[in-house]
């Protein structure tokens, strides 16, 4: 999985210096823009347009055509690809797998990361070691992770089955295989959320705990009534980041098991790649991409809406 970097950027607020006149021709207006940092932003805008806006637009156009990889015999078919996708059982299966993965991993990450952060925060000795140990797997590339866990899950002489002295079908049966993917991913990515929680824990002022202790609140009560509410914002953030990242899951599943057995772990991103690059149908693959993209946009908007609501409530 790609590290969760898809955090929705806050909508830029329009601020204009009071007194700045609206007059002048377009040239003058452009001149003012560049006077105020436009040149500094230009490189970013260029890259943004090239790698985000342009692919978005051209992908939309491809999705309306029967486009192949070589770009020959292209034919405009309107919404034909979307119609085909909605009737494509394999697309739904793959999307279902992605959602199942997301539903399994997200709560696990939140709970585990919080637990690990509490441990690392409260432990007295060798703090640095625990922080490093919990965060280190996050630094591995997906290929290394896949190789590592493939050997751990090896049926006969893998470490897990050898230790358990029992042949657990880690990658051989659909439900087990999905669980195995979740387990490997949890180990791999929990470090990121762990770090966020750790930072949140460190920013809780100590006097809250002292006051509660004076009032006779035990450790459990203190955690439930102080720690959990104080890290609520971070929990929300982790939830959303995790959902967004999990919806794009691909690398580790493809590398460990190629989406097997019987395509029961194949995520939708793999299906897109198979359609687009193995089957050469870039148009159809783009249409499915847009369906997934829409899903991601919905999640992002939902988060924005939730955050705004909360802010208004606070006010």
């Amino acid at each position, binding site marked *: 999985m790609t590290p969760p970097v898809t955090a929705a950027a806050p909508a830029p607020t329009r601020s204009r210096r009071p007194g700045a006149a609206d007059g002048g021709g377009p040239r003058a207006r452009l001149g003012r823009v560049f006077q105020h940092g436009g*040149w500094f932003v*230009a*490189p970013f805008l*260029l*890259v943004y347009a*090239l790698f*985000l806006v*342009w*692919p*978005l637009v*051209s*992908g939309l156009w*491809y999705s309306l055509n*029967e486009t*192949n*990889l*070589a*770009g*020959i*015999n292209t034919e405009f078919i309107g919404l034909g690809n979307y119609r085909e996708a909605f009737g494509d059982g394999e697309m739904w299966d793959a999307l279902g797998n992605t959602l199942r993965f997301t539903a399994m991993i997200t709560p696990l990450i939140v709970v585990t990361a919080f637990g690990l952060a509490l441990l690392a925060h409260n432990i007295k000795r060798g703090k640095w070691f625990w922080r490093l140990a919990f965060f280190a797997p996050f630094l591995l590339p997906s290929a290394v992770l896949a190789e590592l866990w493939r*050997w751990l*899950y*090896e*049926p*006969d*002489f893998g470490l897990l089955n050898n230790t358990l002295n029992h*042949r657990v079908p*880690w*990658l*051989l*049966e*659909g439900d087990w295989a999905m669980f195995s993917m979740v387990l490997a991913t949890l180990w791999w990515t929990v470090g990121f959320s762990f770090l966020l929680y750790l930072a949140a824990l460190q920013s809780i002022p100590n006097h809250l705990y002292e006051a509660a202790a004076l009032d006779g609140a035990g450790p459990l009560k203190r955690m439930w009534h102080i720690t959990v509410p104080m890290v609520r914002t971070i929990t929300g953030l982790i939830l959303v980041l995790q959902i967004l990242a999990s919806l*794009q899951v691909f690398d580790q599943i493809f590398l460990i*098991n*190629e989406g*097997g*057995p*019987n*395509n029961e772990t194949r995520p939708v*991103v793999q299906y*897109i*790649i*198979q359609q*687009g*690059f*193995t*089957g*050469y*149908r*870039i148009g159809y*693959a*783009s249409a499915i*991409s*847009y369906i*997934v*993209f829409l899903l*991601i946009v919905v999640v992002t908007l939902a988060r924005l809406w939730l955050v705004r609501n909360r802010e208004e409530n606070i006010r």
Partner: protein
Amino acid sequence: MVHDFSAPPRLGRRRLLQGATGLGALATLGPLGACAAPASLAGGDGRIRFWNLFSGGDGANMRAMLDRFRSEYPELTVEDTTLAWGDRYYTKLAMAGAGGRAPEVGVLHLGRLAGFAPGRLLDPIDPVLLAAEGVHREDFNPRLWDRAMVDGELYGLPLDVHASLCFYNRPACAAAGLLDGQGRLVELTGVDTFLAALDEVRGVIGQSPLGWNALMSGECWWTFLGLYQQTGGTMLSEDGTGITLDDDRAEEVLALMARLVADEYAIPGQDLVGYFVNGGGFVLFGNWLVVDFDNAGVDYGATPYPTLFGTPATQAESHCLVLPHQRGRGGGANEAAHRLIAWLVRNSVSWAEASHVPAYLPVLEDPEYLAMEPQAEYRSAMDMAAFDPPAWFFGTSSRGQNEVGVHLSAAALGSVSPAEGVRGVRSALRKLINTRNPFGEGSPA
């Protein structure tokens, strides 16, 4: 980002440079400019660019052969590029051919030729130029040569056949009484004989006797293709538009595959090299494991698949040398390209060291080749080769292999019954036939 799977933006270098404003932007975009620039304009006359996908153990052999070619023809320049195997190679080759700016020479799996729009993405090979280099149709197995012919033109020059083999652990088979006087595996004909031999070897080695990974749909496809052809059945009509699958025979083969797993002859998910090097009995896999097993110093032999269902057959593919489409192909560069492909084929005894069976028949009689072990032991794979069905969606690492293979693997693992597996295969074939060939006209299927 999901939408990144669309093709890269079509933006010329000049516009890019015009757009780049600051030095910082230039630095960021420098590499991109290089990407967008034409990878190749028509090459200089003595320059041969050669794309291949030999990223495995055979890559070293290919590079050694090219070095020899360079020393024999110092006036020619060969620039070889090894790209990652599979989809990643084929997507690049297709796009280069579509733009007409492809390298002079490429490598293609013969099974993928039908889907690669011969005439559009590939240019025909000139038989006159080949003959001038001493290479003729008679020097090849006609099945290989004819498969590379489309509309009377030759689009691929076969370099080798690489086949699914049955590797055997020689000491274990000797202890089980399965070797003949020359120390080679005796013929195991029929399912019962084969399973009995596996049981014997299980007794000798004390673990599962067969390395065969039913979890991987590609490996199930190879096994199924070879064994199903042994029953005499076909999957698709010659023109690739009708299903000719014989359900009963297919079910019989799937039942055997499921039995191999259910009775723990083979443990799915096993690393085959790890298994064999650590005293495994048999392995069913492609011939390129020869390189790994030789490196590990295993005492072993290798034969084509045993004949379990009547007619000898073993799954096989063939690397062929192709001329990807270039606008205005011709002249000295094209002649040099023909010289290179003819030379590679004539000198393929070095290629055989990398475990492949040379397609050029004179090499098969070469004493140097006949002395190679275990290469010479499976040279008959050439005559019993079971190729992918003739349709655009089949061939190495293709959609067809993926989508049919999944049902085979499900049946082998026991998640569905063999009969359901056959129904799955049918529905996958139906769906593929109903999908329009993305590259459209120019392909026979």
